[in-house]
């Protein structure tokens, strides 16, 4: 009554093959999984699909499988299921931390990890952790499957490499042992909010030297990005408070934030630096490395 949804034809395929066929045949069709982005987009007129393909009955897309050195997550897995999963909590704690701070319980019960990635909002919270974990995405269409590296997946706001008839099937996440991790989110309030900037970091330290550093941020560019300048600076460097401070300042080379209704570009730039610093500190703390002052 507050909004009017456009009229559309509704399909609910029962198998993946059925879904792929529909996706291939139908014109101006949109896939609905959790619907938490799509239903808003339809209300505000961003999308007016002629058909909606409801993939919620495709149970073959819902799973969390531990393959030992990698975890495979079905695209239809609900965000809340990721939080409930012991596998995710133990083996992909950075993903757990990111999803824990997303939206609200009600949204997480519907929203899916696949939906969050395919919707490709620059503020998507599952993207930075998956980017530092260097996940691979299995996408499928009626012709076959292919693998896309998540770092290539996002092209711009709401634009991905996904072809019109392709469906995201699975997210393959390598398990990282002996890494410190952290996901930090700055919002306008403490919860149930879009980020002004978020930082995901993964660090490995050997002999007090950074042996691997991976940092990803959202809400500071048209797509989530890896802060390569920060990473390059730190790898091979001694773990000191000064190296972290200097490194986090370099993040502005990797980001291109805009001014929007949530924050100005300047504030985002400054906060990207602070959050990168904070995130690195927490990641190191999880490895047992702490600094006396600062």
């Amino acid at each position, binding site marked *: 009554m507050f909004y009017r949804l456009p009229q559309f034809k509704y399909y609910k395929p029962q198998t993946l093959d059925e879904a792929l066929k529909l996706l291939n045949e139908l014109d101006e069709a949109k896939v*609905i999984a959790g619907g938490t982005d799509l*239903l808003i987009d339809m209300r505000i007129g961003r999308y007016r699909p002629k058909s909606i393909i409801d993939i919620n009955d495709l149970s073959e897309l819902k799973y969390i499988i531990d393959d030992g050195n990698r975890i495979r997550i079905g695209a239809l897995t609900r965000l809340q299921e990721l939080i409930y999963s012991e596998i995710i909590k133990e083996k992909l704690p950075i993903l757990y931390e990111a999803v824990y701070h997303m939206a*609200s319980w*009600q949204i997480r*019960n*519907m929203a899916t990890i696949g939906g969050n990635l395919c919707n490709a909002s620059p503020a998507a919270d599952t993207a930075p952790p998956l980017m530092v974990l260097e996940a691979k995405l299995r996408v499928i269409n009626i012709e076959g499957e292919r693998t896309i590296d998540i770092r290539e997946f996002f092209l711009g706001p709401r634009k991905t490499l996904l072809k019109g008839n392709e469906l995201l099937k699975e997210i393959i996440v390598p398990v990282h042992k002996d890494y410190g991790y952290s996901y930090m989110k700055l919002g306008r309030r403490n919860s149930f909010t879009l980020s002004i900037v978020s930082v995901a970091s993964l660090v490995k330290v050997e002999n007090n030297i950074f042996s691997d550093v991976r940092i990803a941020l959202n809400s500071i560019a048209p797509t989530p990005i890896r802060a390569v300048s920060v990473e390059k600076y730190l790898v091979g460097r001694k773990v000191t408070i000064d190296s972290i401070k200097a490194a986090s300042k370099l993040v502005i080379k990797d980001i291109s934030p805009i001014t929007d209704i949530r924050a100005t570009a300047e504030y985002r730039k400054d906060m990207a630096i602070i959050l990168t610093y904070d995130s690195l500190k927490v990641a190191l703390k999880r490895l047992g490395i702490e600094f006396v002052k600062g």
Partner: protein
Amino acid sequence: MALVLVKFNLNGHPVEVDVEPNEILLNTLRNKLGIKSVKRGCERGECGACTILLDGKPVYSCMLLTVQVNGRSIDTVDGLWNNELFKKLVYNFTIKGAIQCGYCTPGFLITSYALLRTKKVISKEDVLKAIEGNLCRCTGYKKIIEAIMETYECIHS
């Protein structure tokens, strides 16, 4: 647009409705099935006043198309009046003054009912996290949190 027949379980009873694909569950519940306890606050999944249980999990009914709930089960406060846990929650909400204008109340009760049923051990942080998706402008949340914690202590002793 063709009408679709949707069958689902509502508060323990089977129901059938004819809906257009673009009809949202909130409207079906309120306008076709007489369930007025589910409230309309924003229709964008931002306020929580329309929270219901879908197969036991709290979701926003304004963010569901009715066609999507075929074969599922839906619970609203209307079906919980005889439930012991719900009664304890209602008692504590009432005694502690956790209800002022009441518009957000059914949503909070559904969410906290689901919390108390899903988790065995609950901390205050768990309560805050569980209700972060339910907005209240009247109470400042303090008495709501107390009512939920009190109910939790009740059922754990």
